[in-house]
């Protein structure tokens, strides 16, 4: 932000010209459409399938008072929260390992970490059907060993939805924690050790607190991405494991109830937006951009 260009005194219209295509795109394709969600949410769906223009609070009354929507919202936050916690538990140690390994290993480990970002989300999600399905690897193996005589029904529940989300979100978590640990001056840990701290104490008192920004950024990303998904519950969840975005998809695509879908989208936007706002109050948005450098 502080980079003052040579012609800062009189930049003229040039920066605006350069920026106008991207800015037009963001305004026309994001800002204006978001306003439309708000407007639509006050309209009413007619019996004929059209919309009645006006200012009706019916959708909002339904969304805010119906326990069904509240339950699904809590279920969504619970699934996203648990996935984030599992990502932290699984991700911290590998991130530490990458940051503290030798240069040659580090490059290979990071490249491997980037691979999942390039492997299609839908394929990574459906791959679990091959492992946990009725005729999946696990069941075939257990049947073969004779431990079980009937295939286990382990798919299509909340646990497999969380499993799928963790599998999708883990690289984001590892990458963010890694960036943070890698930025810590190793002299600090050495200093702690030379002052008599044990390895564990050094980690707890020096490394862990200093890696918190990365941990927070990773958690934010995992939580927001996890809470906004509808594909994972559709592929790996059962009928009772719907998340909030599934309700939006159902309202807009299946029922064509645009006003209700708008109100539901806004609820999701406000809830997740609040999480982002709380985060930026404490950490600043800059941390998120670090993993791109």
């Amino acid at each position, binding site marked *: 932000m502080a980079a003052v260009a*040579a012609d800062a005194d009189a930049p003229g219209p040039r920066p605006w010209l350069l*920026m106008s295509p991207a800015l037009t795109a963001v305004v026309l394709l*994001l800002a204006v459409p978001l306003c439309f969600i708000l407007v639509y949410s006050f309209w009413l769906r007619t019996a004929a399938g059209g919309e009645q223009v006006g200012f009706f609070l019916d959708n909002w009354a339904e969304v805010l008072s119906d326990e069904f929507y509240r339950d699904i919202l809590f279920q969504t936050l619970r699934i996203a929260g648990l996935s984030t916690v599992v990502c932290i538990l699984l991700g911290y140690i590998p991130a530490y390992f990458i940051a503290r390994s030798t240069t040659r290993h580090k490059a290979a480990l990071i490249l491997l970490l980037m691979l999942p970002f390039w*492997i299609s989300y839908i394929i990574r999600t*459906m791959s679990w059907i091959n492992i946990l399905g009725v005729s999946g690897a696990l069941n075939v193996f257990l049947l073969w060993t004779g431990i079980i005589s009937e295939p286990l029904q382990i798919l299509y529940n909340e646990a497999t939805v969380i499993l799928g989300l963790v599998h999708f979100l883990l690289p984001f978590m590892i990458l963010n924690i890694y960036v943070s640990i890698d930025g810590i001056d190793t002299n600090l840990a050495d200093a702690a050790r030379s002052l008599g701290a044990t390895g564990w104490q050094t980690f707890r008192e020096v490394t862990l607190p200093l890696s918190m920004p990365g941990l927070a950024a990773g958690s934010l990303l995992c939580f927001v991405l996890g809470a906004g998904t509808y594909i994972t519950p559709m592929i790996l969840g059962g009928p009772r494991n719907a998340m909030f975005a599934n309700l939006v998809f159902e309202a807009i695509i299946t029922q064509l109830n645009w006003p209700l879908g708008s109100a539901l989208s806004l609820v999701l936007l406000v809830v997740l937006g609040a999480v982002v706002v709380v985060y930026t109050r404490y950490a600043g948005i800059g941390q998120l951009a670090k993993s791109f450098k």
Partner: protein
Amino acid sequence: MNIFSSWSLIRAFTVLVYLFMFLPVAVVILLAFNANQFGSFPMEGVSFRWFIELWHNDAIVRAFKTSMLLGALTAVISATLGVLASLALVRYDFRAKSLITTALIAPILVPEVVLAVALLLFLRWLEMPKSFPLLLLGHVIFTLPFVVLIVQARLVAVRREFEEAALSLGANAFHTFREVTLPLIMPAVFAGIIFAFTISFDDVTGTLFWKPGGVETVPTQIFAMLRNSISPEINALGAVMVVITVAVPLLGVAIARRMAAALR
């Protein structure tokens, strides 16, 4: 306190986590070569029949062409808009700069489902039907922030003096950009193009909302096929997709490295 053994534990844990990330995908690729007609374990030998069936499946070939075209157009448009905006953000000082930076990053802060609904509603208000251009615009808007972040990071590191030298030698702004700035940020531009392409090629969340009836991309085609049951054909299609989305960036990294090396 044996440091060596705790480091071994850390390493072992890391290996397990990496296995967790890659094993399921490896199983997809393995099963794609399964001769067994149900596409499940146990494997009954290696065969290419599912890849051949993919090739003869019109719907899949069509989805594939759609995805390629969509990904390529998204990448080109996104990169162009992103590079221009990054130039403005890094090279000039103007009012409301931090607000505009946030606005350009905003599409990744808004949940993709909400973005999808918003764009769809706007289109409905304009009384335009769902179409391929809508799909393209949608993909451009959510890949744009990635290009901006990547190119901006690189541009900050390009010293202003190089451009000033060109300008003082009589080059105009456009010449300076083409001959000095662009070659210097090319690795980042390239990375942005690759990033935009793979994100677009992989996307299913927004695409399911925006795609017109009858148009399928590879991921939505897989999604539709999953509705029935998991077939060896899906695994084969998955294997092809993995190869494309991994090979393209790897090739990109290699080319970008070569470019960066040539600049030194």
